[in-house]
């Protein structure tokens, strides 16, 4: 058992190391792409904690992503925060929004949970438009950021290589955190809630609290992704709160395989490239997202992770 834990950590760290080395091999364009993929993968990792492990499908993660993005962006624009303070502000605002959302959405279960998450996220989207004196609404805010000062060195966030490594650091944190969380006693209970909530309650667990904290952790990680996205690409706008940012993490997670720690990265990378390629042909590239959702539901419900897992199991040990 302990050996398995060691192997699992070693494997995940190897993936992170590979991503680190990738920046010395990839052409410039793909470095930019992979930066975005890693930032979105943090969103998907957050989503996976709630959906993949706890079994709660949310259609409203855009509100957490946007809370992180606006928390960071507005504090830079209106309060003149530096990048690190802004990142913390973004994560903190996503944490608060998750707490508030959790109190509301966990009152209901099943399909009502989906409806209420979507409803709240749409309201949050409308709020970003309504308070346009602060958020500048649809048009959004283009930020000018101070460099990160650290140990006497200065890192400009406009430098692609700095962006890449900041994104990688956040991704590595999110990945190892999710791995640790799911191997912890807490993670065991999340899975138990997903598999059989009634039983879990009668084993003495307050399942509401576990669902609640799973939601808060998931929302806060999604907010980290939003804050990073805003800071690395120096922009925040109402589109960050749109339905698209609730759909994408769902799609990434499904494609990568639910309840697999590396699933979100795989799903994000593949889907991102698919969208990226198709957007050079048509402005209606979101049709790829629709088609992918249909294809996955109809023919590929286990995603890449499930498929790999089955392949490994078939192999004689």
């Amino acid at each position: 058992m302990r050996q398995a834990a060691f192997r699992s950590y070693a494997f995940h760290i190897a993936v992170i190391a590979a991503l680190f080395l990738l920046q010395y091999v990839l052409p410039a364009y793909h470095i930019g792409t992979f930066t975005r993929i890693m930032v979105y993968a943090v969103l998907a990792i957050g989503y996976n904690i709630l959906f993949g492990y706890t079994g709660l499908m949310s259609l409203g993660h855009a509100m957490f992503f946007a809370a992180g993005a606006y928390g960071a962006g507005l504090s830079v624009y209106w309060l003149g925060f530096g990048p690190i303070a802004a990142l913390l502000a973004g994560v903190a605002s996503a944490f608060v929004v998750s707490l508030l959302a959790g109190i509301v959405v966990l009152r209901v279960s099943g399909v009502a949970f989906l409806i209420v998450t979507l409803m709240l996220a749409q309201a949050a989207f409308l709020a970003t438009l309504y308070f346009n004196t602060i958020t500048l609404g649809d048009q959004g805010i283009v930020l000018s950021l101070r460099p990160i000062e650290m140990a006497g060195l200065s890192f400009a966030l406009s430098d692609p290589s700095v962006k890449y490594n900041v994104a990688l650091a956040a991704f590595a944190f999110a990945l190892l955190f999710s791995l640790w969380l799911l191997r912890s006693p807490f993670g065991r209970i999340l899975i138990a809630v997903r598999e059989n909530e009634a039983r879990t309650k009668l084993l003495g667990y307050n399942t509401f609290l576990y669902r609640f904290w799973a939601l808060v952790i998931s929302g806060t990680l999604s907010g980290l992704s939003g804050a990073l996205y805003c800071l690395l690409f120096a922009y925040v706008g109402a589109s960050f709160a749109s339905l698209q940012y609730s759909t994408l993490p769902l799609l990434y997670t499904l494609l990568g395989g639910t309840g697999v720690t590396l699933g979100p990265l795989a799903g994000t990378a593949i889907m991102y490239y698919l969208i990226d390629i198709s957007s050079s042909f048509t402005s209606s590239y979101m049709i790829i997202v629709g088609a992918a959702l249909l294809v996955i539901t109809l023919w590929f419900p286990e995603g890449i992770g499930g498929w790999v897992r089955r392949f490994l199991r078939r192999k004689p040990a």
Partner: protein
Amino acid sequence: MITGPALLLALMEGAVGAAVLALTALGLSLVFGVMRVINIAHGEFVMLGAIIVWWCSAELLGAHPALGFLLALVMAPVVVGLIAMAADWLVLRRINYDPERTIVATMGLLYVIQQSVLMTYGPDARPIEPPVYFRIQLPWFGYSGYKLIVIALALLLLGITWLILSKSRIGLYMRATRLDAETAQAFGVPVRRVYASVFALGAMLAAVSGVLIAPIQQAHYLMGADPLLLSFIVVIVGGLGNLRGTLLAAALIGIGEGMIAVLFSPTLAKMIATLLVALVLIARPGGLMRESAP
């Protein structure tokens, strides 16, 4: 300062919104009630209805706008009903109406429909001429006669739907399937066809409401989001699958939303509606979700 006439105007606008919302939300609620399916693409059916009005009136350019509108009133439910049946046949049936997977699938459907419209119809919002031009002159302001026709048509269609559900054989089948699909099947109810027709009927109701609002708003490929949000609010308040509750909630929320929209701002109206639902959920956990017979 809100004056009496302004309040009356707001009330009338609210009534128009409520009538159309009732049609849309009834469709969503019906589909959930019988099939246990939440259709995320429901708003896109509203949008398709509005786009079809534009096509019809563009095709018949030069003719009286009423002709195009009447044609759309027939065409939209037929076309959208067929699309919904195809979706049921090709997608929903294959995944056995599994609740979580249908949600993902209808989400996919949302993007496929929306983006197909973007490809063909384009990104512009286009105004549509109302079929009739007359104004009711009240002492304080003139009011569009078309909007009164919308209320009348919506009530008529709600009445027809009610008759279909309560008096016809298909309505009986739907009610039986709703109670227990397996038992209904055992008693010879063609459950599969019932599902296909219910999904189509739900979509048709949405499409008709799209036709009705097109001349008031404009036709745009992203216009499905608002009706979807409002219908969701309505079914949460009225009780998922509870048709009477849906209609009552649609009336209340439609009028309230419409009034705030006129007096303050449409965006604010939707935010307040959502926040109210959130507050109600906190006060009565799960209490709104009780299901009862239609």
